[in-house]
């Protein structure tokens, strides 16, 4: 009992100093079980590879430059689409959030199009734009756009009316009110929307790459299926999960917390 408590205390203190350990430790049993099952001979290795096989494939594909290239392709597509999505989504959200008329007109339409999932657009997009970058970008922009618009609307509406009035009474022009009050007031929500949007966009991108890609992580996984390489499929899945975890937990979530907490807009 005493030893268990001492061990626990040591673990808590260690993870407090190196939080990354707290992230890795829970995966140790997952990888261990996977390793045991793969080595037990229950399934053929080519059908159900072990962690070492995936690791070996990771090293060899990285060494050959295929994995870094594909990863770069995927990330650039995501970034490109997300940038367009942000550039469209924030102004649209501000318009809908601040004008009651715009809200009345746009809101139902917005919800309708949001209900059509991104992938549901693929058949018509393939006819219109074919297998290529335009189709992929369209899907990512479409996926990223809605969370950003909806969060921006929410953010704009959450800014207390008195704040805009105070700014006006201190001499702020409408543009200054937008810049000094509306945008900062909506920022925590906008960042939440961006975080969600990037998450959805990343998943949608992989799906689209599987269908229309000629490169990228999604394409790598689909191509591996054709070659019957389960190792590369699993590798793709692990890369997707790891990468998104890092981006979300280490970059996006801290930014989101920092903006809201500092100003007392979000508690805890």
């Amino acid at each position: 009992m005493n030893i268990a408590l001492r061990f626990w205390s040591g673990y808590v203190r260690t993870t407090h100093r190196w939080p990354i350990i707290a992230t890795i430790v829970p995966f140790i049993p997952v990888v261990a079980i996977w390793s045991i099952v793969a080595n037990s001979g229950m399934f053929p290795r080519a059908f159900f590879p072990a962690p070492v096989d995936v690791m070996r494939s990771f090293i060899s594909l990285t060494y050959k430059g295929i994995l870094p290239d594909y990863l770069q392709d995927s990330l650039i597509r995501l970034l490109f689409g997300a940038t367009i999505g942000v550039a469209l989504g924030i102004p649209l959200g501000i318009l809908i959030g601040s004008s009651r008329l715009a809200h009345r007109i746009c809101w139902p339409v917005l919800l309708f199009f949001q209900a059509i999932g991104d992938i549901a657009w693929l058949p018509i997009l393939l006819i219109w734009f074919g297998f290529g970058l335009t189709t992929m970008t369209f899907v990512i922009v479409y996926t990223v756009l809605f969370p950003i618009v909806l969060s921006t609307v929410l953010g704009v509406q959450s800014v207390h009316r008195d704040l805009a009035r105070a700014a006006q009474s201190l001499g702020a022009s409408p543009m200054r009110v937008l810049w000094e009050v509306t945008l900062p007031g909506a920022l925590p929500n906008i960042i939440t929307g961006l975080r969600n949007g990037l998450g959805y966009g990343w998943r949608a991108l992989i799906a689209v790459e599987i269908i229309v890609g000629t490169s990228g992580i999604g394409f790598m996984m689909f191509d591996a299926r054709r070659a019957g390489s389960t190792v590369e499929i699993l590798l793709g899945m692990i890369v997707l999960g790891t990468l998104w975890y890092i981006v979300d937990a280490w970059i996006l979530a801290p930014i989101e917390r920092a903006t809201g907490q500092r100003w007392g807009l979000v508690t805890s």
Partner: protein
Amino acid sequence: MKTLSLKNLRKTYFDPYAGSQVTAVHDVSLDVEQGEFVSVVGPSGCGKTTILNMIAGFIPYTGDEILIDGNLVKGPGPDRGVVFQSFALFPWKTVLENVGFGPKMRGVPKDERDRTAREYLALAGLSHAADRYPNELSGGMQQRVGVVRALANNPAVLLMDEPFASVDAQTRMTLQEELTRIWQERKPTVIFITHDVAEAVFLANRVVVLSKGRVLDQIKVDLPRPRVWDHLIEDETFKRLSAQVLQMVRAA
């Protein structure tokens, strides 16, 4: 010199759900001299906020005219400083930046507006809080910032809509005393709206009693300054005036 002049002000709201008109302000005329402190008092729903919002330019008005230093009001502007019940401080700006916001909008360079802001913060005893964010301050301190933020912009009129209604009773008395002190030092023209009769009498040179969208009566308050609750609470004149106003408000 009349700083503020309201002529036959009216306001009718349209209620789209009931499909009917609600007249909040029937016919209000009022002149305020430069450097006057006018309290407007009346029961809840008598149209106080509506009048203030029209003067501030937040809602369109009907009636003859609203003049500030002879100029017709057309929307919000820096000649009318507003202090809100909700404080309305910018949460993402420090206290110093909040107070310097008005000068910033006028294009005053940073050094100069920081100096102005610090001067006004000192006036409210807030020098130590300059670099803090509003959410780090108590309600009383936040509203002190709200008051000096409006003053630092040098408005022709200071409009205050129940500014002390959301702080505790003790703090409220302190804020009221501080406001009379600041008024004595700077002599701003003030319209102070409240439903609290004692507060109205304590602060003002003149109390305007409002009832159902009309001015019921006006009473001059010639109490000596500086005004301090410890003295006034026992003062016969204060008690008589308060009772007089209270009677009118209750009959309203």
